[in-house]
């Protein structure tokens, strides 16, 4: 059944919500979600690349030869990643510092290449943009949520952006943050448990 543009957009928010439904692109999910701000920042950067690469790949899909399509995708994606990298350094430097190596790694993020290959190369520009944005925003929301949970439990606070934050310790001064959550093993376990909840709700 052909989908409408709206459906292509909304599928990324639940049916194919990465990384919970599409279990791809896990490295940044695990690596940067020590705070909500980092999660959202990473998500937005990835969304930008997804949007750009889906748009360009879809536009050029009649020109790009089948045999070298992966190489072309990679060049397109890498160009967008570099643009994001440079723009972030210029305009969001603190975030760039926190995300570190994960920004250049968007280039190998399985989601981005996966969408180019599986969707944009086969679909109209408008649909590809909807797909890229939907998946990107879904990814951003997931990262933000994971970041928020980890930060709240592990650090006693939630930083939405810049100075916009909530501090649990003002309400519960005796709370001692459970810092396991913001450490490496906590990332895996927290993601695993969230996936379990989503599976349970999904059924």
């Amino acid at each position: 059944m052909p989908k409408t543009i709206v459906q292509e957009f909304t599928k990324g928010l639940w049916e194919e919500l990465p990384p919970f439904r599409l279990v791809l692109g896990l490295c940044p999910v695990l690596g940067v979600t020590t705070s909500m701000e980092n999660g959202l920042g990473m998500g937005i950067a990835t969304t930008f690349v997804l949007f750009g690469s889906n748009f360009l790949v879809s536009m050029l899909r009649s020109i790009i030869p089948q045999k070298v399509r992966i190489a072309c995708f990679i060049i397109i994606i890498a160009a967008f990643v570099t643009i994001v990298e440079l723009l972030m350094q210029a305009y969001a430097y603190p975030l760039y510092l926190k995300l570190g190596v994960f920004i250049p790694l968007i280039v190998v993020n399985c989601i981005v290449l996966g969408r180019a290959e599986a969707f944009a190369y086969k679909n109209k520009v408008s649909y590809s943009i909807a797909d890229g944005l939907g998946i990107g925003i879904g990814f951003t929301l997931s990262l933000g949520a994971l970041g928020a949970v980890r930060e709240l439990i592990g650090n006693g606070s939630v930083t939405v952006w810049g100075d916009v934050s909530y501090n649990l310790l003002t309400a519960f001064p005796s709370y001692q943050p459970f810092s396991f959550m913001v450490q490496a093993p906590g990332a895996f376990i927290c993601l695993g448990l969230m996936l379990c909840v989503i599976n349970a709700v999904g059924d």
Partner: protein
Amino acid sequence: MGYFELIIACIFVNNILLAQFLGNCPFLGTSKKMETAVGMAMAVIFVLVMAGTITWVIYTFVLVKFGLVYLRTIAFIVVIASLVQFVEMFLKKSIPALYAGLGIFLPLITTNCAVMGVCVLNIDKEFTFLQALVASFFYAVGFGLALILFAGLRERILLARVPKPLQDTSIALITAGMISLAFFAFQGMV
């Protein structure tokens, strides 16, 4: 840092998967069976050693020299992608037996963060060529070790009565977290 410390750091302390969070998709994707885990481990070692050194050379002698450092990401990914293609073609023709073993894993490696990540780390840590070579190899060994140990646990978990919503990826992630916790054992050893 001496080479011994470097090796211990790459395999255990800074394990690319469990401490740096790179290469999780193949980690979860190829660990269900011991055989595939071993295959993937071998393929990563093979490609990473080549990619790590070649990107180092290109960075040092081309990008830095001509002031093109901002092209690092694009240059590295192109090198890795073409390397994987080349290795695949070469193995198919020349060493079919090895190709049969590694072949299906090679395309996965292009989108393996661990490979790209190690190439970037080699540059960020300002390694010499030899250090980059050693680090690439032992990061890959660390990746393989984690993958194989994980596969050992997962083979058992697959047979256990894991509650429905936790099955498969969910429990695998939680187990991976525990492995990453266990690897804290090596902290501070170098």
